[in-house]
């Protein structure tokens, strides 16, 4: 179980993620999206879920028991090839419900100083 003091913990990824046209095209093809000109609305999960995994493993959570409960995106502008995205993730909440631990993580993606997209992942750690 996670200790309550992890709420508010922020993890700023050391690296930025260069977005290539190839990665957008591959993602579009995988989901059957015909328009490759911008990233589809859920593309950022490719970056943020791995960052959340690092943050939560560092906080002592058993990633193998994690199930995705909810997901939300706010997209200020679409992600495009040439973006170099830096991800910062914050644990916004951790609570127990019916023996399962529920953790919510917010991730912000910046290109330089511009906030491109934010996302919220609710992850359930099965008891």
């Amino acid at each position: 179980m996670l200790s309550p003091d992890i709420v508010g913990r922020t993890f700023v990824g050391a690296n930025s993620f260069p977005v290539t046209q190839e990665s957008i095209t591959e993602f579009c093809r995988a989901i059957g999206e015909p328009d490759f000109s911008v990233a589809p609305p859920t593309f950022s999960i490719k970056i943020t879920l791995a960052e959340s995994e690092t943050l939560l493993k560092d906080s002592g959570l058993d990633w193998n028991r994690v199930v995705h409960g909810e997901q939300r995106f706010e997209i200020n502008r679409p992600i495009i090839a040439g973006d170099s995205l830096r991800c910062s993730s914050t644990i916004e909440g951790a609570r127990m419900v019916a023996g399962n631990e529920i953790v919510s993580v917010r991730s912000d993606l910046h290109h330089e100083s511009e906030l491109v997209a934010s996302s919220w992942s609710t992850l359930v750690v099965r008891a």
Partner: protein
Amino acid sequence: MSNYLVGQELPPQSFTINRELLIGYANASGDQNPIHQDEAFAKSVGLENVIAHGMFTMALAGRYASAIAGSSAVKEFSARFLKPVVVPAGVDVELIVSGKVVEILGSAIKLEITAMCGDIKVLGMSKAVVEVK
């Protein structure tokens, strides 16, 4: 001026989910969790069979939202993962996505999106805000 009305139902769209597509999504997204590819592994952790990535199902619902005015027009998108989409070997599972306008927000519409596999609702509380002009 938007041609949409609150309460308006948008036409449903059908999407296919199969094992091959899950491998493609695993490679494109980086989510290589074996529960989405390896039947023996999935069963060993108590699942009925291989299940689709929740984010793959959500991405298909996202295509439904993108189809209205392009991916650039999707400003907000959310979903709750209610039930896993079970994907047996050699089977094309059909996902039916439909939408209803629940709010007009200036030049954008807010949609409530429903995603069904047969009679099982797999995404819940799914909303998308789409700029329409």
